[in-house]
């Protein structure tokens, strides 16, 4: 457990089974999706979170039932980490019976209990501010949590939201998945300055996470999230992470070297090396589970929708 926050160390031995399970559920889910797309069994679009699965798994354990989560285009992991319902999510993406949103929303537009994703970058942050305003008034310590990418900091709405969140001292947790790229554009060519600086510009607390060790991450984040709840203050948590897969499907124009670098940052091999047997067992289990889910959902009839 005495790991530092740096990348590239072996994974800790203490990781809980359920965390490994959840991370691997997401991994296999995303892999299955890419396969289904290749086989022509799904169409439209999808964005997998390969390489980033540990982030929502680390964060979700710190969230309560009353917290409201906002997600984005790359949201399968955010959803599965929180609610685990892979059947419902896959059915949504495939437009089958039992879909979370009757197949209407699809991969990018999910609203389930207190989880909402949208496909327009940056748009959800002001909405999260509004939700946080309501939650603050309720006074039960709940927060609004919004996941955004590094590229999303190009949108003006992000700043309008941060300003209001800090002015009004709202319980807003912004989780930034800085994977160094936006679609095809490296962060350095779409972002001047830093995310830390941008939080500081508004007097908002910023915390940087460079490890993939979820226990370490949780240990660091717990007091911050308590601060969001108890002091009702916005906090920005930035994860330095890696997108191990394509932006969407087959659209990775990074050089082989860049892709290798992104994959080298993947938590998967590190956790596999750290807990060889446990990992192999759970990995196999989750792989089979997802395969079964995919077969089951693929066999379902199309979703139906009462549009009135």
């Amino acid at each position, binding site marked *: 457990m005495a790991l530092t926050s740096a990348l590239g160390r072996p994974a800790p031995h203490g990781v809980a089974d359920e965390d490994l399970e959840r991370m691997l559920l997401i991994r296999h889910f995303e892999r299955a999706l890419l396969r289904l797309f290749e086989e022509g069994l799904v169409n439209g679009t999808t964005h997998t979170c390969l390489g980033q699965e540990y982030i929502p798994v680390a964060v979700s354990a710190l969230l309560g039932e009353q917290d409201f989560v906002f997600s984005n285009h790359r949201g399968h992991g955010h959803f599965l980490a929180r609610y685990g319902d892979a059947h419902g999510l896959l059915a949504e993406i495939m437009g089958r019976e039992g879909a979370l949103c009757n197949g209407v929303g699809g991969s990018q537009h999910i*609203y389930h209990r207190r989880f909402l994703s949208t496909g327009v970058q940056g748009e959800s942050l002001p909405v999260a501010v509004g939700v946080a305003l309501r939650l603050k008034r309720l006074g039960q310590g709940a927060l609004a949590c919004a996941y955004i990418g590094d590229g999303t900091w190009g949108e003006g709405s992000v700043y309008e939201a941060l300003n209001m969140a800090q002015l009004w001292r709202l319980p807003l947790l912004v989780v930034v998945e800085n994977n160094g790229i936006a679609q095809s554009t490296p962060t350095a060519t779409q972002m001047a300055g830093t995310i830390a600086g941008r939080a500081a510009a508004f007097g908002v607390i910023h915390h940087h996470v460079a490890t993939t060790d979820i226990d370490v991450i949780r240990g660091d984040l717990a007091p911050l999230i308590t601060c969001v709840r108890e002091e009702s203050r916005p906090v920005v948590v930035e994860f330095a992470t890696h997108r191990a897969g394509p932006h969407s499907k087959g659209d990775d124009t990074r050089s082989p070297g860049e892709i290798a670098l992104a994959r080298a940052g993947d938590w998967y091999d590190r956790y596999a090396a750290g807990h060889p047997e446990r990992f192999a067992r759970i990995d196999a289990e989750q792989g089979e589970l997802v395969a079964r889910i995919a077969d089951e959902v693929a066999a379902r009839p199309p979703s139906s929708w009462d549009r009135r």
Partner: protein
Amino acid sequence: MTAPGETALGATGLGEPAPDGTASGVAGPVRVAEHLNQALHGLLAADPGLHLLGEDVTDPYGGAFKITKGLSTAYGDRVRSTPLSEGGIVGVGAGLALAGDRAIVEIMFGDFVALAFDQLLNFASKSTAMYGRPVDLPLVVRCPSGGRRGYGPTHSQSPQKHLVGVPGLSLFELTPFHDAGRLFGHMLSLARPCVLFEDKVLYTRRMCRDGVVDDLFGYELVGDAPGWAVVRADGLTDHDAVVVAPGGLTDRALAAMRELLLEHEVACALLVPAAIYPLDLGPVLPYLASARAICVAEDGTAGGTWGAEVARLLYPALWGSLDRPIALVSGADSIIPSAPHLEREVTVQDTTIRDAVLAALGS
């Protein structure tokens, strides 16, 4: 921006009497701005989950048009002055509404709703349906709109037409005939995002009540809430022409109707919906079907107008009984100049409506 108390007729260069025929300053029904303010007081008092957000809305300023005066003093931080962030505050309103509260957002000048277009089109209205089931989102965005005050090209527009036809988004316009409190109640009860347009000159006019408009005209409300106001000369039961217009046009439509009646012996009925989109024409079809000419008037610029939407509904509905095309009156296809003499050239005047009715009747 206008100064407090400076919303008088003089500022607009228009000399028509208030719709109720009382001279400005003389006692009588309350001014529309005040009526709206009182309605907001009532709503905030009755609903502890209702918020009002906007730039400079708190006391002592009470909003650029003073519509929110007294509210922050009475209702504390449910009434909130915001930074200049039109997109952001509409998003905040949507978030409050999504989470179980209700929100009214004031856009200082309706022109700036353009900055919130994404939040309205791609979030608030979409969210009511794109998650595969109905989702409540009780949000009203208030847009002071219209010209005739010399505020210039970016502070005088009537952006209604750009928001027509967004699935899940309902549009309303303030009128001197519809009780604002009841109208807000209706909008919030839809639990869907609504945009309310409020004509800036109408603010300065008086509400009508008890069926009385002025010495010549009376009105009744027809149809389900919020309904249409049907305005006709007292005692007249049939009419030659119908003018369909949102509330902001009332003063000019009435002035035109008065002149048409007194100088040209043309009887007109004026139909004013509070709900301008979607439009329920059912209750007023009888008035339309019996008219020899129909004129739809609005303040937006020409092209892609609200009137074109009204007309596309009316042509098939009245096919057979229509014996001439529907006349559409709108602002010119032009920016709206600052100088009053130039502004007048491109904005709808009472004479514009009068001439359109006469032309439609072939006189």
